[in-house]
């Protein structure tokens, strides 16, 4: 992985040292296994230390890491027989949002999410995972289809935000997101969301109103980007790391505020270095949660979903 974060560097260095030692032992036919084991213990200790003490800004950078598994990686790893469906039936298809049909343990589900590119070219094609209104309208179309056929909905959230451009405004970005909020609040099938990377404001919430919401342990979720907050609040976009801290946007913070239901732990070292294990952990939570939700009578489910959002917020009176 070429993209190294500063706090990862000591880990990478130690790992390289171990690798070098192993190579040396092999080349010279020596037994250095005791030394290697000692260093391996040291590196696991270092990983534990580093990843238990991540700052909010460290999480932001992990959440944006280009090596993290994307929505399509989660779909491929967790579901069977995925078939992508495209288009909002009104204007166009938006590659920043993907979705379709799949089987989960043999049960048909509708699955969708923001899709970032896995390289520069794909990122350009997918607008860096920032949907236009047609992305949200495609998502709505797929969710209403799910409701019609009684399929549960699983969504993956990973966007810096809904796109801010001329066309997006002309075609009603606000309207598209608002329509999803009201539709998801009343959708007559179980809905599950997982924030897998960046949960950027209304663009994230636009597919994030659900019976159960989880975040990966180094994912983030916020009302505005830390850069945006910093430039509005302090007229200085370089104080983003401070802004990330005061905004309380890490998975632990968001859980403490009662906005999500679970945290899915990434392996030590982060999702970008352990893609398969991360996908597996998310799959396990989704399957278990969906089992619980499918056992609930629809009326109870809808009542509980309403009550959950009804109770959000802190105020006096």
């Amino acid at each position: 992985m070429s993209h190294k974060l500063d706090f990862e560097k000591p880990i990478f260095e130690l790992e390289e040292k171990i690798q070098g030692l192993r190579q040396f032992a092999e080349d010279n036919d020596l037994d250095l296994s005791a030394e290697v084991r000692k260093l391996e213990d040291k590196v696991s200790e270092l990983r534990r230390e580093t990843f238990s003490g991540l700052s909010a800004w460290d999480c932001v950078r992990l959440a944006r890491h280009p090596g993290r598994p994307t929505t399509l990686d989660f779909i491929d790893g967790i579901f069977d027989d995925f078939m992508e469906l495209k288009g909002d039936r009104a204007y166009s298809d938006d590659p920043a949002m993907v979705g379709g049909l799949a089987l989960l343990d043999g049960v048909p589900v509708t699955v969708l999410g923001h899709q970032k590119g896995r390289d520069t070219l794909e990122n350009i094609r997918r607008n860096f995972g920032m949907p236009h209104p047609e992305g949200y309208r495609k998502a709505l179309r797929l969710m209403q289809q799910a409701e019609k056929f009684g399929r549960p909905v699983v969504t993956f959230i990973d966007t810096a935000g809904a796109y801010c451009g001329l066309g997006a405004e002309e075609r009603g970005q606000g309207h598209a997101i608002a329509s999803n909020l009201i539709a998801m609040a009343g959708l007559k099938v179980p809905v599950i969301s997982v924030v897998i990377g960046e949960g950027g404001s209304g663009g994230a919430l636009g597919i994030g109103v659900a019976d159960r919401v989880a975040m990966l342990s180094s994912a983030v979720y916020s009302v505005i980007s830390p850069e945006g907050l910093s430039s509005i609040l302090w007229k200085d976009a370089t104080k983003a790391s401070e802004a990330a801290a005061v905004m309380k946007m890490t998975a632990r913070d968001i859980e403490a505020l009662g906005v999500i239901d679970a945290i899915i732990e990434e392996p030590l070292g982060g999702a970008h270095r352990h893609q398969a294990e991360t996908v597996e952990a998310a799959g396990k939570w989704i399957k278990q949660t969906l089992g619980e939700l499918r056992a609930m009578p629809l009326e109870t489910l809808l009542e509980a979903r309403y009550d959950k959002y009804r109770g959000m917020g802190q105020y006096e009176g």
Partner: protein
Amino acid sequence: MKLDFLKRKKWVRLELSNQDVKEAAALREAAGLKQSLSTPAVKPEVNSGEVKTAQNVTAAPKAPGPDEAACPGCGAIHSKQRWERSFKVCDQCGKHGRINSKERVAHLVDQGTFSPIAKEVTSIDPLAFPGYKEKLDKAMIQSEAGDAVLTVTGRINGIPAALFIMEPDFMMGSLGSAAGERITRLIETAIENRLPVIGFCASGGARMQEGILSLMQMAKTSAALGRLSAEGLPYIAVLTDPTTGGVTASYAMLGDVILAEPGALIGFAGQRVIEQTIRQSLPDGFQRAEFLVEKGFVDRIVHRAEMKAVLAKLLRLHGFAPALAEAAATVSATTTDTAVNLQGGEAHVS
């Protein structure tokens, strides 16, 4: 529920009532407007979305005297009394100045029929966010609304309704936990009492000092509107200057009918953010109310002087009618014309 609706249906009148016409005429006069109610769609040349800035006004702007107010659009000087009486609409350029929730209630709700809902709900500082408490204290002094939205029940030309009116003087009408709770309680009150909901939006967006909790108010209020909708009760959204960010991406855009004041800035993203994203300046009139009508996101633009009459008409078109007993009493004290209408209505029901 169905029966109630049928009963109400007999009350539907497709034209503006005499009272509406009189009130609108008085307001128009106060605003110095010559337009007639027969053309409720405001002519674009009178009220174009383009806001004249100091630069494109030929005469150098004069400073207003102590009893005067300068139009924020064209800089024309009005006497303070006239400016207040016209609800801050300029008779020179048609600019709708920003008015606070208290002024809005005085303009819209029948005198003596207004009662606040959830006034006790106020903001706290859940994230211990730097400087937020001080900002709240300041806002509490600047505005009597108590938070970024005033929620009331009251009558509009005799018709009972639930209203929320966002307060630009309270932290730019930003949506936080307290405002979300107030709006949700108002919607629930409307469901309980089978009232239509009218929401005046004016907001800079979600209140970032409350972090993710402010974002969740979008989901919370939308869920409540979903319930209102399932009950067959109408929600009329009125977008005023400015309606942006999280409010646009939730209840502002969820009205069964969406009205807007002339020239109001309405959009999801802020103009500066868009300019930074696309690296070019925005076309004239972009994100103004007239632009949204053209693009199909707003039903119609309503001049402030005609707002009350149009709302009353919309409510009647949804089968709502003036409240019976008390309304008859109020009306007999005002105009005989409406009293006749009401008696006619009463005869239908009995």
